[in-house]
């Protein structure tokens, strides 16, 4: 069975600083990988996804993520954080079969200092 670990429960960065959120997954084959963002009281919005091909993927709101098979990682990055990026971020892995249900990491709460 697949699993996802987000080692950082909370991260605080200053506005304008760079950001990296870590995600490690466990899955037997090539996974479908996703990053979602959840603002307080809101649903989940897809930031970006990786299925195959180029291991550096671009998403919305200036985010990118890099798939590293050797490290079983899919870290999310942003070069310059804005105050509006403060939210909860979830990494997820989806298996191709069995309904393609997503397994989520525990989430990382991002706080942005002015």
């Amino acid at each position, binding site marked *: 069975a697949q699993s996802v670990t987000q080692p950082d429960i909370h991260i605080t960065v200053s506005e304008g600083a760079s950001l990296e959120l870590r995600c490690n997954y466990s899955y037997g084959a090539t996974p479908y990988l996703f990053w979602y963002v959840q603002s307080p009281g809101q649903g989940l919005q897809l930031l970006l996804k990786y299925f195959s091909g180029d291991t550096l993927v671009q998403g919305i709101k200036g985010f990118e993520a890099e798939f590293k098979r050797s490290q079983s990682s899919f870290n999310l990055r942003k070069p310059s954080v804005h105050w509006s990026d403060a939210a909860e971020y979830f990494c997820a892995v989806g298996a191709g079969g069995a309904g393609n*249900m997503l397994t989520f990491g525990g989430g990382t709460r991002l706080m942005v200092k002015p």
Partner: protein
Amino acid sequence: DTAVSQTPKYLVTQMGNDKSIKCEQNLGHDTMYWYKQDSKKFLKIMFSYNNKELIINETVPNRFSPKSPDKAHLNLHINSLELGDSAVYFCASRSSGNEQFFGPGTRLTVL
């Protein structure tokens, strides 16, 4: 023009009651899901439903049952509500490109 909608947004009820949460998607997707987010923000899949094929997460109590009147709707019915059922429930639908689109969530509080 909301893609995935859920009603109600908030639901407060007593232990032992039976309640339903409705979900509708206007994206034309074939597969829909229910997820549960607990008080620690942990998200867990409950069900996957595709063309009358139901895949159930084995940890979900049988008090929970999804009902799909048609391809655009997947409702969640919960019998004999317990305190531990308090959570935010998210509906999602999946595109042919394997992206899942989530509804805004229903916050269920069991007293």
